């Protein structure tokens, strides 16, 4: 048994799934997207560390049956049913799954921007546009630069990444 050379072998930046985006830039971007604990559910109904919205989880295939409900605070939020083998509790307990989901989400948005399917507003960076899409969807991007407070904060945190 060889002695372990060192623990640095464990240190690895996640690879960038976005063509042309360096690892470091991706790392900054994805770190900025992490807005709450792994097991958290945001007031907007977003799940996990990246506050992934139920609608996006449905689009990504993790969940189905998107419905709306009013929370105890009177806020209208969307909820979804996870598709087996996923359950909400399992998803909320799994940081790797959340990372994979958000990576996939961003990758698809990025492709849509690159292909022209989604129009990036002039003056908005790619990273900023992706952040807006992630938190607010296409509608939020269309309304740029008029953003909700939280969306604006995320945009500001991410826009300089790339």
């Amino acid at each position: 048994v060889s002695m372990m050379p060192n623990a640095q072998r464990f240190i690895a930046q996640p690879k960038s799934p976005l063509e042309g985006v360096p690892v470091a830039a991706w790392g900054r971007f994805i770190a900025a997207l992490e807005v709450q604990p792994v097991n958290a559910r945001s007031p907007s109904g977003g799940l996990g560390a990246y506050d992934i919205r139920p609608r996006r989880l449905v689009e990504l295939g993790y969940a189905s049956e998107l419905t709306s409900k009013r929370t105890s605070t009177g806020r209208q939020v969307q909820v979804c049913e996870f598709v087996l083998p996923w359950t909400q509790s399992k998803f909320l307990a799994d940081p790797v799954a959340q990372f994979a989901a958000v990576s996939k989400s961003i990758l698809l948005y990025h492709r849509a921007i690159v292909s022209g399917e989604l129009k990036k507003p002039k003056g908005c960076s790619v990273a900023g546009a992706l952040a807006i899409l992630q938190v607010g969807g296409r509608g939020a991007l269309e309304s740029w630069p008029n953003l909700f407070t939280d969306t604006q904060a995320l945009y500001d945190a991410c826009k300089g990444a790339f």
Partner: protein
Amino acid sequence: MSQNDMDFEEFDNKLEDEDGSLYPGKYVEIGTIDLARDYGSGSYAEDGPLEVAEDNNMDDVGSAAMYGPTEIGAFGEDMPQEAANHLLSSEDGAGLYSQDGASELGAGLYSQDGASELGSAAEAGFSEIGAEDIQAPFESFMLDDVRVGAGLYPTDGASELGAHTGLYPVDGASELGAGLYPVDGESEIGYGLASEEGQSELGSAAMYGPTEIGEDDLGAGLYPVDGASEIGAAIVKVIEKARDNRQPPPPMQAVEVDAPLSYEDEWDAELTETLIGVAEVTGNPNPFPLTAELMQRCGSGMQPRIVRIDTEESYKQFRTDSSPELSELREMLEAHMADPQAHGGSVSDPLVADLSGDVEDLVHLGASAKAAEDEKRLDFRAPRHLDGLMEAWMHNEDEVGASMALPSGHIATTLEPVSKCVAEMARHAAQADVPVSAVVGALTSMGCVLGAATALKEMAAAAPSLVQKTQTAPCFFRIEPKLNPALCALAMLVMACRQGNKQACTEWQNLSALAPAPVKQAMAEAVAFAKAAA
């Protein structure tokens, strides 16, 4: 690729097509019970290849005591009485162990005596398993390298045994084995940080300090004195959490691969469902924390593990067949050996030139194959006397392979799905409260080390049984807990209750009130078991 599904295909060296990432469909959930700490483990004999199982009695004494993955089993009885004693550790602390000598866990025992972890087992003639043979949990080995905890220990080389025991509060749990690590200044490092919940920040703090140990001063590179790498600190916290969470495997046994499962396994399922059901109905996520911990400790939910037993020769063949690079090298060698013209000729004979070309190719190919094998190897820190007795490697993209030498001279091998390894590490990471982005890139490699450790520990726990049952090799066995997990857990629960553990009594009473008939039947068996063992 399916794993440990008794069809042996995981031992097939041919790669199967994979269908992409682990997520979402392929991810394996391996439970959400919050495990307790990983108590000291390992007890390979220093002077030989795991000879600890040679005495058949050791099978009864408990594989755990020999091979170390678990402290349960020091008694020569199936009833895990010492495990029940262990329950009392939260109240009585390590002193319990030093008194009754029943467990190798006692910090007091070790820090004072520094010798045998076996207690009564040692009296029965197993004293060859000394403290120096105890093997640190594999999670520690990961931590060792980041020098976590180094700062906690005096730099003058003073005994870290005392420091270890001093670090642990009275619950007598996480100190287990801490004092057992060799004093060679290596493997004890970091174990002092196998800390209580809430203490794990000690690790991050400590790692920034200077380290007195080791030439390969990894910590310095990773964690500059003036500030920690966020990623490095997060990784350390995850490793700490993994170490805190992990349980040693229960005593294991080898059975035929297609041996039927015991009818008692129904108890395991029923008890698990009861715990989950009560949690759902009451909204309390963990209404039976002690029972759940004991269930986990007794191996509840462990998936069947298939173990391949080889001779040294068949093992080489197996590994060669499993490696495209080695297979290519072998084919070229065989072709060369089969070519009569490749071995003859004179200096002026053009065949000689061909031969030298072949040799050059072989040398080059051999170096490439070695490099490829090195690349696949999973390094983990283990006591030096285990050098050459265990190895772990990436069997393919989907599986971790782990092998260990048995006292009989055979080699046991098993495979662990990478998805399962990552799932476990992800669960620890989720509990470690670290930024996902900081650790996600490391979880696979860390998980694979953890998975290899799990595989090795389980095989080690079953080693006596594997040795006993192996007639010819290669052959296959299934290894599983010796005791039905539900029965084991319930017996431990009732014994803990009898010894005054109020939590155990409360949970026992609640189970009596809420459990369905099969669980009540198991409870009755457990009571009978406990009576017999008393």
